[in-house]
């Protein structure tokens, strides 16, 4: 068996030489804030991951072009190291680890996608390096480590906001209580959090809402017929579903073909997407959705952002662009208030930061004690003719809600 051993031996030796060749210390530079980022630029999450990359780089460039950030009197530029985790959770965590231990970054910007960020978020605690994620809203990620911050509000607040909106419709006489809800959830963390928000609200408002039926479904289910048949048999008044884009399209097509009718319809964060409009046409009318951001928000800073973004990229900004951009901005705001670039200094600055001209709903961005930003959501409703209106909260309204949905 000698040849096997020899083969094995030569192979391993060559490999270790190759590995050794890859390692090499990186020199530190003065007057520079080293920021690391790990995003799914390729792979399954590449569509939005790539958008996060684009917006992050844009934001960093904007800051650097504007003179950088002044930390403790010293002007500094941001040096961004952005790595691609190819949408693989294990790789994602390892890259964050690498950034912290090898490249010795001062702070890490987290990725996009709950499962990827979940994997990444166990790392900051080990090395005591601050970490800010703009791409995951699952509550389970935050509150476990003081080093982990997130700008995406929890998905259960998304559904709670939707329930608030529905309540307001009852108060305004457009809908009559008691209302029964048909709740459909994708079998992911996102779906679980969404359900939590609805459950909590229903419990707190007995007599107003009740859940007639609750069902889970797998991502990319080929046939929603059995599910929708079961749901329609439960005879509810409101249709609340949390789904990804492909499932939303498949399900709503079936919904329309089956001639189902509910007084109000939502697919969580979906509905206003251009892709949805394209796939479903007028069937998307009157669907209401909640998002972390909408370009319709009537704040001057949002209008300014829209214009800047359109000029720089030639297309309208989507919520993921806004979130990635704002995450960099809030980091910059914190850094400018930090007494030094030491990890604890940056961390305390993040915990205390209060960005007052934020483009996010509410106009103000700061982190809650768990490290996650708890911001209001906006509720938008599709209107005929490809129009979208913000219908909740009242302060950000651009149009009135239509409820119940007109029967076709």
């Amino acid at each position, binding site marked *: *068996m000698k040849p096997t051993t020899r*083969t094995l031996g030569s192979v*391993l030796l060559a490999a270790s030489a190759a590995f050794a060749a890859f390692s090499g210390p990186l020199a530190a530079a003065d007057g520079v804030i080293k920021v690391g980022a790990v995003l799914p630029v390729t792979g399954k999450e590449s569509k939005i991951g790539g958008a996060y990359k684009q917006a992050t780089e844009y934001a960093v460039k904007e800051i650097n072009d504007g003179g950088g950030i002044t930390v403790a009197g010293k002007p500094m530029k941001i040096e961004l190291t952005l790595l*691609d985790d190819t949408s693989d*959770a*294990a790789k994602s965590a390892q890259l964050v680890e690498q950034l912290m*231990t090898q490249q010795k970054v001062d702070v890490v910007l987290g990725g996009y996608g709950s*499962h990827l960020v979940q994997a990444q978020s166990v790392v900051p605690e080990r090395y005591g390096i601050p970490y800010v994620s703009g791409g995951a809203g699952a509550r389970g990620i935050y509150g476990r480590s003081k080093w982990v911050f997130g700008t995406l509000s929890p998905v259960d607040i998304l559904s709670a906001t939707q329930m608030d909106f529905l309540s307001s419709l009852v108060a305004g006489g457009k809908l009559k209580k008691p209302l029964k809800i048909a709740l459909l959830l994708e079998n992911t963390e996102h779906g679980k959090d969404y359900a939590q928000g609805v459950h909590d609200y229903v419990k707190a408002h007995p007599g107003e809402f009740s859940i007639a039926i609750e069902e889970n479904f797998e991502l990319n289910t080929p046939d929603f017929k059995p599910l929708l048949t079961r749901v329609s048999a439960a005879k509810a008044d409101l249709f609340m579903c949390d789904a990804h884009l492909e499932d939303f399209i498949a399900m709503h097509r079936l919904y329309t073909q089956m001639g189902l009718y509910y007084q109000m319809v939502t697919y969580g964060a979906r509905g206003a997407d251009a892709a949805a409009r394209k796939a479903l046409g007028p069937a998307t009318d009157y669907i209401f959705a909640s998002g972390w951001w909408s370009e319709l928000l009537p704040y001057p800073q949002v209008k300014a952002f829209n214009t800047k973004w359109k000029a720089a990229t030639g297309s309208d900004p989507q919520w993921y662009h806004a979130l990635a951009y704002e995450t960099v901005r809030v980091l910059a705001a914190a850094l400018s208030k930090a007494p030094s670039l030491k990890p604890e200094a940056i961390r305390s600055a993040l915990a205390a930061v209060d960005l007052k001209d934020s483009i996010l709903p509410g106009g103000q961005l700061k982190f809650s004690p768990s490290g996650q930003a708890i911001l209001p959501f906006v509720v938008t409703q599709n209107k005929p003719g490809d129009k979208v209106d913000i219908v909740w909260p009242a302060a950000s309204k651009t149009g009135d809600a239509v409820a119940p949905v007109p029967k076709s």
Partner: protein
Amino acid sequence: MKTRGVFAAAALVLLLAAPRFLERGTLNDIWNVAFAVILASAWNLLGGFAGQVSIGYSAFIGIGAYTTVLLSLAGWHPYATLPVSAFLSAAFSVIVGLPTFRLRGPYFTIATIGVSEAVRVVAAGVAFTGGSSGLRMPAGSFDFQRDYSAMVVLAVLVVALAAWIQASPFGQALRAIRQDIDAAEALGVHSTKYKVLVHALSAALVALAGSLFAINFQYISPNSVFDFRLSLSIVLMPIVGGLGTVAGPVLGALLFGYLQIKLLSSPALRDSYLFLYGGMLIAVMLFEPRGLLGLYRRVRGRITRSFSRPVPDAG
């Protein structure tokens, strides 16, 4: 045998000493490769030696990972969970193996896909596994030095075990089963018994790797550990490296590990990694089904023949 023993010891010493002079990033890479080596070599026991191709091995990784995390959350020391995860995985492999080993060839392969996917769906749907949000290890259970050493030691052990099996009567029986199962039975080899045994051993080793994975990554979810694509890449490595050999799976694991690193550092390659993997598979299947090792042996055979000196076939 002695040369091999010395060699294994040397490799182990080198790898264990590595943290002293290598960067963390490189150590992570070695860890990844060690993980891949374990999976590839363990799979090869059933798939290469015995010739039963299973594309459902992610189920065992998942069982190992979840056993470790659940028990750790219940208060066990992470490393104390390893024997349990190996046992459970082996037990599951027997339950699955007994009915499915009646099937031959690709029917068996398809059955394994079915089982693995069913396990994934159930794991994602049931509450005590944390459902689709996954589970986290209890805080403070991370120790890279320890986890790195464990993975590396396990990798060397698994390869040594594979070499030992190949030379043993057990290995001979497996080879007979791969070549012609009916002839083997006629010669008195109880094929089902051997298949179940090697399957259980293989599953146990893979589960151990899964447990170590969970301990190092601290967070697992059904879609990450029970992924069908993971099952496919486990099959890829030994095939590309050289099915049924000892060095083959190691070679395959190293190659894929290397590719992963290279890919991440080159933007041009990043967008075409599917091309690369696919192309490699196609190339191997078309031109050298015995993998890189087979290619090496073919080339070496030609070179030695060109010196026109009779060389004893030391396959």
